[in-house]
C-alpha cells in the first residue's frame, strides 16, 4: 500500500470515472456531482481512501461517476453498508449518497440509526420531493395534496422535514443547500467533510422531468432573497433583497420583522450552530415557505464521540487489559479434563 506522503495535487477531473453520466439533461444531480468533484481535491485525502456508498434511486447512481471506490447497494441500506465499512475501516473517508425516498422511506430506520451513532460519515440526501427513477410517484417529502401517478387525487400523507428528522436523531452536523446555489453547496459539502461525526446535508434538487420547479421559490433569481435565509454562525438572521427583514423570537416562536422602525439587528435571533441543545436548530428546521424564508447553511455543528472511534477504542482497551487474543487460552478458559 502506498505510503507516499507528498500527495499529488488532484483536480476535479481526476475524480471523474470513465462512465457516461446518465441523468436526464437538466437534472439537478449534475450540479451536485460537479460541486463534489470540485471540493474533494481540497480535502487532502487520496482518491483510493474515499468510498461513495449509495442505495437506489436517481441520486444513488452517483458512485458510478466517481473515480473512487464505491458501492451502489440496495434500496435504503446505504447508511448500514457505510456503517459496516467505516466501523471496520476507520481510515477511509466515506460518503453516503441518498434521496428522499431511499433515505426517508425505505431506509428511514438506517438513516436514523447512522445519525444517532454519529459514525464519521457524510450523508448527502438529494431531496427532489418525488420518486424519479420509478417515474413519478409521491415521496415522503412531497407536500400534502401533491398529484402524482400514485396519488391522482392528491397525496394525503403528511410530509417529513428531513432536517427535523436528523436533528431529532441527535445529529451532530445538520445542513441544507440548493443544487443551483453552487458556491454555497460547495461550502456546505466541504464543511460536512471536515466535520468529525455523521454529517447530514439535505440538498434541494430539481427533478426537471417529474417534479420540475418544486424548489423554484428558493432558486428563482427574483424571489430567492425573500424565500431563503442564509445561516451564519454568530450572525443575526437577516434576509430580503434589501436585507431589511429578519427573524425574531417571540416566546417560543419565530416571527418575521422589518428592520428599522425601532427594531435593530440586536433584537433578532442570532444563529448558534454550536448550541449544545438542538432546540434552536430544530426551530429553524421547521421554518418553511411560504410562511417563512427557508434557512440554508449549517444548522448544527457540535462535537460528540463517534461510533467508529469508540468501537475501536474498546478493541484497544480489551487488548490492553486482557492481552492480544490467544486461542489456546480462550479454549481452555473453563473446566477441562485430560483423556490419556
Amino acid at each position, binding site marked *: 500500500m*502506498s505510503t507516499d506522503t507528498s500527495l499529488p495535487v488532484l483536480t476535479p477531473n481526476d475524480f471523474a470515472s470513465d462512465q457516461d453520466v446518465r441523468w436526464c439533461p437538466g437534472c439537478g444531480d449534475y450540479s451536485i456531482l460537479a460541486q463534489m468533484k470540485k471540493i474533494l481535491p481540497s480535502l487532502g485525502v487520496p482518491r483510493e481512501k474515499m468510498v461513495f456508498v449509495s442505495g437506489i434511486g436517481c441520486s444513488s447512481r452517483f458512485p458510478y461517476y466517481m473515480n473512487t471506490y464505491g458501492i451502489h447497494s*440496495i434500496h435504503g441500506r446505504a447508511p448500514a453498508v457505510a456503517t459496516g465499512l467505516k466501523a471496520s475501516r476507520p481510515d477511509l473517508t466515506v460518503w453516503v449518497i441518498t434521496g428522499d425516498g431511499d433515505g426517508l422511506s425505505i431506509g428511514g430506520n438506517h438513516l436514523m440509526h447512522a445519525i444517532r451513532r454519529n459514525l464519521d460519515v457524510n450523508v448527502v440526501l438529494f431531496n427532489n420531493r418525488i420518486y424519479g427513477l420509478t417515474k413519478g410517484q409521491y415521496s415522503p417529502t412531497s407536500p400534502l395534496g401533491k398529484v402524482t401517478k400514485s396519488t391522482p387525487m392528491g397525496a394525503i400523507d403528511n410530509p417529513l422535514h428531513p432536517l427535523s428528522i436528523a436533528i431529532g436523531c441527535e445529529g451532530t452536523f445538520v445542513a441544507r443547500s440548493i443544487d443551483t446555489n453552487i458556491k454555497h453547496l460547495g461550502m456546505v459539502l466541504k464543511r460536512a467533510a471536515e466535520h468529525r461525526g455523521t454529517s447530514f446535508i439535505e440538498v434541494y434538487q430539481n427533478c426537471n422531468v417529474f417534479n420540475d420547479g418544486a424548489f423554484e421559490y428558493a432558486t428563482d433569481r427574483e424571489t430567492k432573497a425573500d424565500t431563503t435565509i442564509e445561516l451564519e454562525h454568530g450572525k443575526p438572521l437577516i434576509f430580503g433583497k434589501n436585507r431589511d427583514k429578519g427573524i425574531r423570537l417571540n416566546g417560543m416562536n419565530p416571527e418575521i420583522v422589518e428592520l428599522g422602525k425601532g427594531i435593530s439587528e440586536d433584537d433578532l435571533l442570532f444563529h448558534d450552530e454550536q448550541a449544545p441543545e438542538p432546540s434552536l436548530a430544530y426551530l429553524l428546521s421547521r421554518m418553511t415557505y411560504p410562511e417563512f424564508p427557508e434557512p440554508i447553511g449549517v444548522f448544527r455543528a457540535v462535537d460528540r464521540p463517534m461510533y467508529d472511534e469508540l*468501537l475501536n477504542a474498546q478493541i484497544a482497551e480489551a487488548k490492553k487489559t486482557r492481552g492480544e487474543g490467544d486461542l489456546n487460552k480462550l479454549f481452555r478458559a473453563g473446566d477441562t479434563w485430560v483423556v490419556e
Partner: protein
Amino acid sequence: MATSTGVSARESKHASKPVVDLVAATVRFCGDSGDGMQLAGNQFTNTSALAGNDIATFPDFPAEIRAPRGTKAGVSGFQIHFAAKEIFTPGDQVDALVAMNPAALVTNLGDLVRGGILVVNKDAFDDKGLKQAGYEESPLEDRTLSAYQVFPVEITRLTRLAVEELGLGVKEADRCRNFYAMGLVFWLYDRSLEPTLRYIEAKFGKRPEVAEANRRALRAGYNYGETTEAFASQFRVHKAELAPGTYRNIMGNEATAYGLITASIRSKCELFLGSYPITPASDILHELSRHKNFNVRTFQAEDEIAAVTAAIGASFGGAMAVTTSSGPGIALKQEGIGLAVMTELPLLIINVQRGGPSTGLPTKTEQADLLQAVCGRNGECPVPVIAARSPADCFDVVQEAWRIATRYMTPVFVLSDGYIANGSEPWKIPDVKAMPPLEIKHPSPLTNGEEFHPYQRDERLARPWALPGTPGLMHRIGGLEKQDITGNVNYEPANHQHMVDLRARKVANIAQDIPPQVVSGPPRGKLLVLSWGGTYGACATAASEVQAQGGSVAHAHLRYLNPFPANLGEILHRYEKVLIPELNRGQLRLLVRGEFLVDAAGLNKVQGKPFSVFEVVDKINELLR
C-alpha cells in the same frame, strides 16, 4: 435412552449403599422457568464431562419469558445423556426425572422410562399447584405413578431447613432448591460436588451468604440420598473411551463463535459481526462481543437488514464479514444476500434454525430453512450451503464456510439449529499450532495507469478482492448486472445470460473442492439413510443399532448441501431405497429428487423436537421389510 445395566451391584468405597454400574444413563431436570433447571442441568453436564463420560444434552426452554409460575407454559427442562461409550443423542427416554412441581411432572412424565426414577418436590403438590397442572387429585396419592420408582422429597422444606441459620428470606432460601435437587442427583449418580462448589464460589463469591446457602443446600441434597432410607442404591457411569487429548464441554453457539474467531486468526482477517438479537442465535453475538481482544468487532444493528448490509460493507473493506440470525431474520436478510452474490463478496450467513413459519416456535428446533437457504432469493442467486451436525461440529463448519467464501468470493450459508445451538458435548481442544493458515490474496496496487478489472476471474472463477485504500484499484460495485471482466453496469441480453451462468458455475465448481461423501455401513444394498444437520446423532445411532441387529442399512450424513458432494448421485444409485429423515416436510428430499431423480422416502417430523432414535429405527425397519 433406556438404562443398560452393566455389572452387578457392589459396595462403593465411600458410600454405605451398593453401587450399580451402568453403561449410560439419561437424567432430566424440569421445573418452573424460575427454578434454575438450566443451571442444574449445566452443572450436572459439566460434572459428568469432567468425570470422563461422553455426553449429549438437550435444554428445552419454555416459549414465554415469564409464564405464570407453576403453569405448564412455564416449564423448563434440561436433559443429559451421559455414557461410558460414545453417544450421539441426548437420549430418547429418561432414566431419572426430577420434577420440581406438578406442571413439570405432567408435561415430562411421558418421557420417563417405565420403572425409572422419579424425584418430585412434594411440597409443590398443593391444591394450587395441582390445579395449575390440571390434576384433579394428587398423582402422589393415587395410582398414576405406579409404574415408576417414586421419591417424593420435601425439597422446599428441607432446603429452607438447610439454610435456616443464614437468616435469608424465604424467597432467597427457596432459590437454593435447585442446588438441593442437584445434590440429590449427584449422590444418585455418585458424582463429585467439587466442580459445582467451584462454580458457586466463582458465581456467588461476592455474596458470601448466598454462596454459603447454595453450598449447604447442595450438601443437604447429597446427604439426603446417602443417609435416608429412601434410596436403596447408587449408580455409576464410568469414563468413556475417548481419543486422547484435552477436553472441555462446548455448546453449539459457543463452538460457532470460537470457530469464527479461529477462522479470523487463520486468515489474518479481522472479524466483523453484524447481528440483531433473535432466539436462538443471540448467544453467538453475546459470545463474540466478549472477545474484542481478538480484533472482533460486533455491531448490534438496528434490524436484520442493517446487520447483513453492514457486514457487506465490512466485507468490501476487507473484513471477515459475518451475520447471524434465525429463520425470520434470515428472510429479512435475503435481499442483502442477493447483493453479496451480485457483488461477489465473501460473507457468512449463519442461520440457527427454529420452528416456523413466521415467529413460529422461537425456542424449539426445526430444519425447515434449507430451501430458504438454497432458493430463498429473487433471481438466479446461487449460494453455497453447509450445515453443522452437532454442537462441536459448528467449530469446524464455520471455518470451512469461510474457506469457501474467500476462495470463491461468495456468501456462504451455515445452517445450525436450536437443538445444536443449545446442546452440548465434549470437545477435544484442537492443537492451535497445527492449524494451517487460510490464505487470502488481495490484489496489489496498480501505479502505472493500467486499468483494473474487478470482474476478471481466476481459475476458480473467483473475482479479485480489491480493498479500498489500494492505489490504482478504484472500482465501483453494486446490485445492477455487471459486465463480465470490467464490472461496469450492463443490461445486454447475452451478457446477462453469461453472468447468470457464470455465477452458477462458480458455485457448482465448489463440488470439486470439498471431500467426497462418505458412507458408513454396506457400500451398496437395500437402504441408505441420508441425513443432514442436527439429525446426525439420531440417524447415526439408529443406523448402527439396525446394523447391529443384522439389518442391511447404510448411513450418509451431508455436510455440504449446495453444491452436493460430487459423488453423491453415484452413491444414491447404489441402494434400492433411500430414506431421508428431516425435521421438515421433506426439503432435502425435494432437492435430492430434483437433482438425482431418486425416489427417496421421507421421515418427517415438525413438533419442535429432535428425532428419537427409535422413530428412525422403526422407519428403517419398515423400509427393510
